[in-house]
């Protein structure tokens, strides 16, 4: 588990907001994908029924997760695969590194996987002298640029085509005459990666779903890089969070409808691969499945937070979020950005390490409405805010102020005295009929909001006067 505190969201967001290219690219990406999603979702008259079924299957799976994982393990082993259990990132990285070393290979091809980003696998492999080659186009771009992802689905959305052309000219397409036409750029990546695919000995992938009943693993993708990695190398190592398991093969009937429509806004993504252990004469002949905890069992133990584990990483909540669609992913300081990241990251790394993330939301609830598995993100955000507040020291100025306020609100007399005091004290701060900045520690609150001044007469004052018969 990461023990270092993440950067505070408001500061990180400020940097992101001042980057006009990022804002333009993000605005275009989120609105485009959002519209595509809305169009394909509206094609399905039973969308809400699918969401309910998906949510319900996930809830039942989490309740009996131990049984499903054991069933999955048995099924994978039965089909000729090997299963490894990893309590945390370090253990997963050690297992994978040793598995690669055992093959004698010094490089691996990788299918895009958030889970391997989460555990910083590439860094761990590099430390052991193993080169990890990202094969998803966007992942390749950010790997070559030495950057991190800004969007779950389209990680390089912060970069423009001309930047990508310049990057390729310095790296994978030296000496090639390259324009900034996306077609040409994709072709350059194809040429470079094809050599890697055709000669690769080991591939590392994540998993979208794993079927307990059959031991079948599912990876959904678009470019065909996934199929290349899952088919051509001799050894395949798949890392999956323990929450990715589904009870039965038939459950795919629901999730293969929910995922592509929510994610890329397509009826179906171009390629979905399903495989079970090893098949003689077809594909990798050695298969390893690494089951990763890395904080997930902490999430599972929380009655409200548990639903976070239902997430199928579609990114619909990112695209709809008024905060994410302006700040982008980097501001969240984690591989999981957006509304889902704001609830998943603090639970995975500890609320203390990511205490600004539950506040990176307006609580508008749009994320809940689009979530294909009905994760009530606003509910979990509020729950986590409560945890953050309870973490604060009793001497924390905000906690002190809140306690004092509670004392004032508890007594009508004290309340009216405070009102009286504020009425005379506020004069200095009223501009144009509103209080637009507060002094000292209260300034943070008023930088984003105006406050109505306390009126000269309160309702209770007026009522008292009326009873005395002063006014009509």
């Amino acid at each position, binding site marked *: 588990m990461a023990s270092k505190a993440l950067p505070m969201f408001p500061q990180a967001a400020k940097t992101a907001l001042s980057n006009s290219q990022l804002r333009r690219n993000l605005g275009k990406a989120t609105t485009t*994908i959002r519209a595509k999603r809305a169009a394909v979702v509206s094609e399905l*008259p039973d969308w809400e*029924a699918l969401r309910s*079924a998906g949510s*319900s299957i996930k809830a*039942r799976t*989490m*309740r009996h*997760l*131990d049984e499903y*994982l054991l069933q999955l393990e048995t099924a994978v082993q039965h*089909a000729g695969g090997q299963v*490894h*259990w990893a*309590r945390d990132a370090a253990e997963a990285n050690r297992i994978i590194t040793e598995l690669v070393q055992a093959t004698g290979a010094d490089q691996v091809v990788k299918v895009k996987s958030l889970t391997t980003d989460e555990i910083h696998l590439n860094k761990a492999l590099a430390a052991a002298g193993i080169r990890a080659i990202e*094969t998803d*186009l*966007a992942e390749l771009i950010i790997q070559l640029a030495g950057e991190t992802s800004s969007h779950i689905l389209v990680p*390089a959305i912060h970069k423009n*085509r001309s930047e990508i052309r310049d990057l390729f000219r310095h790296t994978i397409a030296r000496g090639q005459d390259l324009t900034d036409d*996306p077609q040409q*750029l*994709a072709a350059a990546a*194809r040429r470079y990666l*094809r050599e890697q*695919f*055709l000669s690769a000995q080991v591939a590392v992938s994540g998993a979208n779903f794993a*079927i307990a009943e059959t*031991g*079948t693993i599912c990876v959904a993708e*678009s*470019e*065909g*890089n996934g*199929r*290349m990695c899952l*088919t051509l190398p001799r050894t395949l190592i798949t890392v999956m969070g*323990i929450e990715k398991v589904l009870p039965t*093969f*038939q459950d795919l*009937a629901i999730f*293969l*409808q929910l995922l592509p429509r929510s994610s890329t806004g*397509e*009826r*179906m993504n*171009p*390629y*979905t*691969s399903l*495989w079970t*252990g090893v*098949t003689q004469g*077809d*594909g990798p002949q050695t298969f390893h499945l690494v089951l990763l*905890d890395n904080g997930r069992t*902490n999430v*599972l*133990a929380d009655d409200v937070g*548990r639903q976070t584990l239902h997430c199928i990483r579609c990114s619909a909540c990112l695209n709809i979020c008024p905060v994410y669609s302006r700040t982008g992913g980097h501001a969240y300081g984690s591989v999981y950005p957006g509304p889902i990241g704001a609830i998943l990251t603090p639970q995975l790394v500890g609320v203390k390490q990511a205490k600004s993330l539950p506040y990176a939301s307006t609580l508008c609830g749009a994320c809940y409405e689009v979530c294909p598995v009905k994760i009530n993100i606003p509910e979990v955000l509020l729950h986590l805010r409560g945890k953050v507040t309870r973490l604060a020291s009793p001497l924390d100025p905000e906690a002190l102020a809140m306690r004092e306020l509670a004392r004032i609100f508890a007594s009508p007399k004290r309340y009216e005295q405070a009102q009286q005091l504020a009425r005379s004290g506020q004069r200095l701060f009223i501009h144009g009929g509103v209080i637009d900045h507060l002094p000292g520690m209260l300034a943070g609150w008023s930088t984003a909001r105006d406050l109505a001044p306390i009126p000269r007469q309160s309702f209770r004052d007026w009522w008292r006067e009326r009873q005395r018969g002063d006014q009509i």
Partner: protein
Amino acid sequence: MKKSAKDVMLARIRAATANAPEPPPVPYDFRERDERDRAAILEDFIERLVDYKAIVTRTEDASLPQAVMDACQQQGIIQLVVPADLPSRWIPSGIKVLRDDPPLTIAQLDESSGVLTGCAIAIAQTGTIILDGGATQGRRALSLIPDRHLCVVRAEQVVGLVPEAIARLVERATHPITLISGPSATSDIELSRVEGVHGPRTLYVFVVSDR
């Protein structure tokens, strides 16, 4: 004795869920079948294939080889990779054939410009073709490495909805399965769609019905 990672993780899960309530049963209220007539379903299938930039030809059993020949000429395919068990009556006589028997090398597949396979099932709702490694389909590398994938879909293999296809696949669940919806694609650069990245850049579909 030190506890294994597996024991620790299972113990954590059991402790985490011990007091969790039993969730309500799963509501299976979504559509499991497309009840419309075959013609409408087939029409949807073709429309959605075209929508995802696949090339579609409707043909009959007897004229399939000619349709394959036309496609090869149009696509400039001079040598066609075929699975070991692909029926000879599908293959036009004027084309050089590379049968995957004995298994072709990756280099041979990389050098060939097209592959002809059948499929297991197809889904109209999503324009999806499913290969499960069964008859006429061969191993996965065949339909992956050559740049053009020519695929024969028999009308009776087309089902309406995703759940119908999954129900039919259950028996073949543990075979390598690939769902293909259009040619490979990426939208990673400024979200502009490029068709054809690593998988076949052209998907050519023959919809065969007995008329």
